[in-house]
């Protein structure tokens, strides 16, 4: 390197050679980085293709007649049609697909509402109010993140059964309204902790009580975690299987995952085409959410993980 420098300081007639040399070096460097870029993209695309294959296979299979599905590696349907979807939309035993869809939608939307209401309020208490026992309760809440749910489901079931609430949506929603999912509270608390306290104090001086501070100052600033929480609450509720399996017994109350499972369990046929179609239909909202909000979701997950 020093020799090049020296060369540069040297006589003027060396310059044309240097220019050529460095131009050549630059060209080689560009080529190398192009090759590197190509390798990168090929590699990543290869992995991405493998990752995406099952989802694409599901999508493409739903357009094929049943007998063309099982062994078929190729994604291209020979006889593409929407017949499977028509069948899937026909529902099960007199209960239409849209009923299942509507149930899932209701559960998901109510879950989002419940989570936002309860998690923000709870987070405010943990993040912004000093009161005795706060640390203890907070630790307990964090501990529930690590608690396997098995240890609560049986008594919960017994309790809801005694109250006659099995076969209603109540058991599935009540936890959302009581901040039972610590993940969301944690998300809000972390965010709130980063909001400057001066805002609170200014409001306090102006005579605002906690309720007003919460409503007028905190909430408007909470859009990012509220969005993240809403998206995850929606998706997790939409995909939830265990809860509906336990508590929804009447076909007209079934959510999509439970209906889908009945569809697969039919004792007469294994109609793969219709199964694939219904599987696709059941995932459409999740995929839609993802496509629209993907930047946001991924950002939300990565920042949340860092603070953990």
């Amino acid at each position, binding site marked *: 390197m020093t020799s090049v420098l020296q060369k540069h300081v040297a006589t003027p007639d060396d310059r044309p050679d240097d220019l050529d040399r460095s131009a050549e070096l630059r060209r080689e460097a560009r080529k190398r980085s192009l090759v590197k870029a190509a390798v990168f993209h090929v590699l990543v695309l290869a992995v991405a293709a493998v990752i995406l294959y099952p989802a694409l296979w599901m999508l493409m299979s739903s357009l094929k007649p049943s007998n063309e599905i099982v062994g078929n590696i190729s994604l291209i349907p020979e006889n593409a049609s929407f017949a499977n979807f028509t069948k899937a939309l026909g529902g099960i035993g*007199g209960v239409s697909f849209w009923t299942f869809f509507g149930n899932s939608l209701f559960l998901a939307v109510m879950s989002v509402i419940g989570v936002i209401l309860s998690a923000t309020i709870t987070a405010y208490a943990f993040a912004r109010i000093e009161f005795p026992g706060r640390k203890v309760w907070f630790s307990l809440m964090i501990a529930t993140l690590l608690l396997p749910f098995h240890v609560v489901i049986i008594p919960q079931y017994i309790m809801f*059964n005694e109250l006659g609430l099995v076969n209603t949506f109540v058991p599935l929603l009540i936890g959302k309204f009581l901040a039972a999912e610590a993940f969301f509270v944690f998300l809000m608390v972390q965010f709130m902790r980063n909001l400057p306290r001066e805002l609170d104090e200014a409001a306090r001086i102006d005579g605002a009580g906690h309720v007003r501070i919460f409503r007028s100052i905190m909430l408007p600033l909470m859009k990012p975690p509220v969005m993240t929480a809403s998206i995850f609450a929606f998706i997790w509720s939409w995909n939830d299987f265990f809860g509906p399996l336990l508590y929804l017994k009447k076909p007209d109350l079934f959510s999509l995952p439970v209906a889908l499972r009945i569809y697969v369990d039919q004792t*007469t*046929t*294994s109609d793969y085409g219709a199964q694939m179609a219904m599987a696709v239909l059941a995932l459409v909202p999740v995929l839609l959410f993802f496509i629209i909000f993907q930047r946001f979701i991924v950002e939300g997950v990565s920042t949340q993980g860092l603070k953990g």
Partner: protein
Amino acid sequence: MSIKRSALKGIAVAAVASFALTACGGGGSEAAPSETLNTEEDVTIVFNWWGNDDRADKYEEAIDLFEKEYPNITVQTGFQAWDDYWSSRNTEAAGSSLPDVMQMDLSYLRQYGSTNQLLNLDGQIGTALDVDGLDSSLLDAGKLDGSQYGIATSSNTLAMFYNPDLLEQVGVEPLDPDYTWDDLNTFITDVSAAGASMDPVIYGSVDYTGTFWFFLQWLVQQGIEPFTEDGQLNFTREDMAEWLNTAEPIRTPVDATYPIARGTQLLPLGGFTVNETASEMSWDNFLAGYSADSGSDNLQMLPIPSNADGEKKMFLKPSMLLSASANSEHPAAAATLIDFLINDPEVGRIFGTSKGVPAVQAQRDAMVLEEGSVDARVVAYEESVAEFATEAAPLPVQGFGTIEAEFKRLGEEFAYRNITVDQFVDQWFSEAEMSVGQG
């Protein structure tokens, strides 16, 4: 500190509340009084059944007819798959809130009947409920300790199905009606040997010892009553081991049984319904499903194998029953629905033999029995084996569902050769000790 203490107190209160709620066990109740149907009063009753969407469509049709005839009764329907159905009923039973009318299976009759969950239908018989059309032995099958807790809607019995087209392909003759268990083993081995070179490979049958009801039938054939009057097991480990070993000839020296790995993946279909096994033992009313799934309308039925004395000793059992809840607020309306479903000829026509051969003659007559149709063939089969159906159906014990499922699970483990016959028997009996006659 005081906050912590009051919080702890709160938790304790909640915990006690949970205990209290859990400790409130199922409520017992007496046989309902004979209440007559008030045709002026509008009532709503709940009716649940298990089955697939085909059965659901049929029931909806039948219920529509019922509601036309009894406009003051509205029926709220619901249905589930078998497993979920019994899970739900169990939960409801605990809360004493079973549906007004429900489809009942023999395997659970004792469990629900003896825990006072089912309405004693004696109070309704003769008024809302007319059971004259039923064969007395079928009617008796729904009784517990002399009282009526379920009414058989239809009957079924075991049959040996076979696919003559497949047999022709492999060049093996069908069995004669008076064949024995040994003959069956030979038949299966022959078919599997002949079918080994085909594509797809054809087998004689699955390992038939893996189904609990077949074991019970075999016990009856040996002159052993499977269960005692007071709901306990009446057979020994040796009996079970002997049964499992009857199929030894089809396992060694050559394994002629349908590969379990394939069978598992085909669920809910099986080797027989994908035309890869030539025979299958099952309930006779499965002909409809088998024909539809396999696509063959040429499936034939034989009675089950004879024992060493040449006797079949088959039994006719209720394929399913209808029961009412002991806590129903409208026992007369519930009984009316049951009466309609078992007696109305139109209902007979709607269901055909999909649930079994209808128990009441009027319904049998109303079935459209086209020559060669599934319904006709099932009815013909049952008539042909009537002479063999000399025994009474065993009344399953409490916990039957669990031990039946355990038998099936062990059958699967055995088919994968993960356990031996002795291990099978040991595990099953330990499960049975825990589940039979509890509660």
